[in-house]
């Protein structure tokens, strides 16, 4: 198929020729796509290429000159902080994926059962879960900081005191803080898993469950042998998307912990930010950004393959 449908002179009477030519140019996608292409090229594509280029230099925010080198990769990969950054990132991303998927699936199943029985109040619960996803990330971070605070206004510790348990250092214990941040991210992101998995559930034919019921299957067996296998593609898409979103999360962790205590909650996104705006090391920040980009790219390819499998 050719890219443009050209209207030839034979299609039109002679006096319509000028108009026909104009119409032909109008039909070319180039001009239609140009504005958005420019916007994305200038503010996205070019910076992406630049970040790769800068990662192969020794540029800093303090010097205007730089030379090409692989040293930035070497020093980032040899940095003694890197294993800690990986650890925090893996806990944050894997914890978010597992938590959001499990909770999202539970909610999706509950909503489906509730809607089917036309129970009142189900819709309200759905809207509240969705609202947590829509509010600005910084507001979520502040909300969770107030909940997890060890001061008088901290909700969780007030609850623990109520049942005579000793308070917990949710955000100032360097081993616990990353889990607290992950919990906050699960709260914020579960709605997305709920939407994706709920949509997945709708594609399963009710006749399968009716047949299973006739055969005397228990609810658990129906879930295990019908729901889970049929939900496979939706689960995969959900896992990939939640991984990407969690990996890119900055505006939740930054206000909640700032990467601390120590550097215990410094996930990859925060490490990239700190390298540039804290240590003024453009090149090392770019190396970390390239690492993020590569992981995102890999996940997007998995996502693309998975969603092709869905079709």
């Amino acid at each position: 198929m050719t890219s443009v449908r050209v209207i030839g002179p034979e299609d039109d009477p002679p006096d319509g020729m000028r108009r026909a030519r104009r119409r032909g140019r109008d039909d070319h996608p180039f001009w239609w796509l140009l504005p958005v292409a420019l916007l994305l090229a200038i503010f996205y594509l070019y910076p992406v290429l630049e970040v790769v280029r800068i990662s192969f230099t020794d540029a800093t925010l303090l010097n205007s000159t730089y030379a090409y080198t692989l040293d930035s990769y070497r020093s980032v990969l040899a940095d003694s902080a890197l294993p800690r950054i990986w650890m925090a990132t893996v806990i944050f991303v894997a914890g978010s994926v597992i938590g959001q998927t499990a909770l999202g699936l539970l909610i999706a199943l509950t909503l489906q059962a509730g809607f089917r029985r036309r129970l009142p109040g189900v819709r309200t619960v759905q809207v509240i879960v969705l609202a947590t996803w829509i509010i600005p990330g910084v507001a979520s971070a502040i909300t969770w900081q107030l909940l997890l605070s060890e001061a008088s206004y901290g909700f969780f510790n007030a609850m623990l005191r109520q049942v005579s348990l000793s308070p917990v250092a949710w955000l100032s214990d360097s081993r616990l803080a990353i889990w607290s941040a992950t919990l906050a991210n699960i709260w914020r992101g579960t709605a997305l898993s709920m939407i994706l998995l709920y949509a997945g559930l709708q594609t399963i034919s009710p006749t399968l469950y009716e047949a299973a019921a006739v055969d005397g299957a228990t609810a658990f067996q129906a879930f295990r042998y019908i729901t889970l296998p049929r939900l496979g593609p939706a689960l995969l898409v959900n896992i990939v998307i939640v991984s990407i979103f969690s990996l890119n999360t900055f505006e939740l962790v930054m206000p909640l912990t700032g990467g601390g205590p120590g550097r215990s909650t410094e996930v990859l996104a925060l490490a990239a930010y700190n390298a540039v705006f804290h240590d003024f090391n453009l090149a090392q920040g770019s190396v970390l950004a390239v690492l993020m980009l590569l992981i995102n790219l890999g996940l997007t390819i998995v996502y693309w393959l998975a969603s092709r499998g869905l079709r």
Partner: protein
Amino acid sequence: MSSRTRWKEGIPLYLALTVILSFFALPLLWLLSLSVRTPAEILIAEVRIVPHSPTLQNFVEVLRNQQFLGYLWNGAKLSIIGAAVACAAAAPASYAFSRLQFRGKTQLLFAVLGFQMISPLVIMVPLYRYMQALRLTESHLGAALVYAAVAAPIATWTLKAGFDAIPREIEEAAMMDGCSRSQAFLRIVLPIGLPGLASTFILTTMLGWSQFIVPFILLSQPGMLPISVGIFNFLGAYTGSATQLVAAASVLSLLPAVVIFLILQNFVVGALTAGALKE
């Protein structure tokens, strides 16, 4: 099935719904509760959602703060300009994706969506550098253009869905009568597609209102900051000393997003999961 057994079957469901509701609603209720407390009641460590003497004084105080009003104004300005530019740039492309046949259309459409997988954080280093070279750091224009670029993919997808819903016959009739395609687009398709355009504009404004990374990196003067970064600074300045004000400021910052969401629920959910839920 009798109504009695139906009711009994509903019990585990209501249990599950209650657990879900508490996990998701309690944090927001707590924020709301702190925002209507007196400074003295902030210091009482007990689980009480409704304070002893609720007050709206905190909201009054926050809204009297000139700097906070500036944050709100800057946030509105940046997100509205960003959304307008995003919609204006995306509309012709969405129309082309909806109506024209050309090679690589599907691949291009997914490539546009692919930009959404790249965090603004990845591109911040070059962005900061060349925005500085163009003197576009500490500039609302520069920041709004980046807002527009971030919102452009989602705007393209949702506008395309809107144009898909408009029957081709209407503009084809106009083109038979001698209208060029761009005239048909401007005079016929856009006016009919106005509701979809308006929804997309509101959605991208909402996303801009939440945008944090872009202004956090490109703007630093207090008078320039939008609400998202503004409440982050509020947090640093007031936690501990005036937590009730931080809570009130946060409530004010999330209110516009929640109101827009409540009005446009299905549209918002559809737009934000575009691509993932397309068969």
